[in-house]
């Protein structure tokens, strides 16, 4: 048998020898085991075991803060992320609400300018006002009420609301407006919604103020009251009252939408609110529809939107416009009209 070399191909004999060796008890294995034993020097043993012991000691002597650093880091990151999210949301709300407040103040000023300088205490019935005046009053009153709600008051909300309700009662009788019982009770989530005492110049528009909270009861009471007053007028006035009623329903709907919007923005700023207020995305506030006192101005803006090729926005505004002013005459060829198209 020739000695195998690296270049020589392995034959069957080699294979058999390998199999024999792998089974154990080969002469080569025996010879290998008979080689002189190699002992690990004791110094090496001590060195290795000492290192092992040192490593364990070093590990156990780690300060507590090192062991807890990872969980603390995770918790701190979570808290930080949450704080950023909350803070960002609140800031957005604050920015938007301040913009809205400024806008509302401007509208109030405009409403006050357009309103009669001194309204008599015994004001004419709602049906006697022109539609334009009613709308202006309604808007102005609503915006003033919203502003009042935002102003911090010394008295607690509940008491303030109750006081406001009490103050409302006599004026309601005076102006033949819906009974105070019909006035909406302050909601626990937004107690500032309770009607506040109106300024002297707004007392003539009491019937609108009572409806301002937007409750369904108030709306129905107001409607029934409007119907009662319409019965007392002549046929022409009845027709006008019916028309006004429709219009009022639409306006109420619009007001409810606006109130819910303003309540949301106010809730983010008003820290006295008893309920948790969650931030809304800034986009929601930015897209808040503008309120118009003049339908023509509204139409003008819709036309402008159409000119700017913002059809979707224009259509939306047109629908809002139609909901608010269902009977306002708009020419068939008016650019503001929705392409029904």
């Amino acid at each position, binding site marked *: 048998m020739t*000695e*195998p070399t690296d270049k020589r191909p392995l034959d069957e004999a080699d294979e058999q020898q390998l199999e024999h060796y792998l089974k154990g008890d080969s002469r080569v294995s025996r010879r290998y085991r008979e080689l002189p034993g190699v002992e690990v020097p004791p110094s090496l043993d001590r060195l290795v075991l000492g290192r092992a012991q040192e490593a364990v000691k070093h590990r156990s002597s780690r300060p507590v803060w090192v062991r807890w650093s990872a969980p603390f880091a995770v918790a701190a990151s979570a808290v930080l992320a949450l704080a950023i999210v909350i803070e960002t949301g609140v800031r957005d709300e604050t920015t938007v609400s301040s913009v809205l407040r400024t806008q509302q103040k401007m509208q109030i000023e405009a409403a006050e300018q357009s309103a009669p300088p001194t309204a008599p205490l015994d004001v004419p019935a709602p049906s006697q006002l022109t539609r334009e005046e009613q709308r202006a009053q309604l808007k102005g009153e609503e915006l003033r009420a919203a502003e009042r709600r935002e102003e911090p008051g010394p008295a607690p909300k509940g008491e303030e609301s109750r006081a406001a309700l009490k103050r409302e009662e006599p004026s309601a009788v005076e102006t033949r407006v819906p009974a105070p019982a019909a006035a909406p009770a302050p909601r626990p989530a937004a107690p500032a919604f309770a009607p506040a005492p109106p300024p002297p110049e707004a007392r003539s528009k009491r019937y609108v103020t009572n409806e301002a909270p937007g409750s369904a009861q108030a709306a129905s009471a107001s409607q029934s009251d409007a119907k009662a007053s319409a019965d007392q007028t002549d046929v022409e006035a009845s027709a006008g009252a019916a028309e006004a009623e429709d219009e009022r329903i639409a306006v109420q709907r619009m007001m409810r939408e606006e109130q819910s919007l303003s309540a949301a923005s106010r809730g983010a700023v008003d820290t006295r609110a008893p309920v948790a207020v969650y931030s809304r995305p800034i986009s929601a506030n930015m897209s808040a529809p503008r309120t118009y006192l003049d339908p023509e101005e509204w139409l003008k803006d819709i036309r402008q939107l159409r000119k700017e090729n913002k059809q979707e926005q224009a259509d939306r505004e047109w629908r809002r416009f139609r909901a608010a002013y269902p009977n306002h005459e708009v020419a068939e060829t008016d650019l503001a009209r929705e392409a029904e198209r």
Partner: protein
Amino acid sequence: MAVAAGEVGGAAAPSAAGATVSTIGAAPDDATLMLRYRKGDVRAFEMLYERHKGALYRYLQRLCRSPEVANDLFQEVWSKVIASRERYEARAKFTTFLFHIAHNCAVDHFRRAGRPQDKGAQDVDALAGELPGPSHESPDAALSEAQLRADFKRALDELPAEQRDVFLLYEETGLGLEDIGRITGVAMETAKSRLRYALGKLRGALRQHQSPTLQSSVS
């Protein structure tokens, strides 16, 4: 079988596989000991060290053919085991884990020191003097036996490093060719081929000392 490689010299520590076999039901296995050490049990490491130190030391010394280098590598290997205790997972045998580190340390050493084959085998006469012969044998027989061991040792030292590596791993660890291939980073067939060549050369060294009548029994 090769698992008894730890019995070399009689006083040497048992090999990994041998220790595992002998301690079944009596002592925890290597992975358990390593995990216990990971948790801070130094005693577990001591047991683990006792089990494997002999096989590892022999492997390193016979692979590198230098006690000084073997000492350095031995320390390095155990230091790495200690350092990697936190990452240790009992997915493979501890022996595979340990000798994989040892193999890598040896390869690094060869890379630093140059070709491993450069260092020649020890002088046969000197080696023969080291090898103890059976006391009951006649001087001629003892000399012959010593000569045989010296020749075998020289043949082992003269093996190419890859073949010697595979042969030593097989003898010292008792691992299969698949695990040896994993340790050395080659396919099982390559490991098998290396082992076959190593066996052929070692057998050739033994054959020179056999009488013609025994020639056939060797193979």
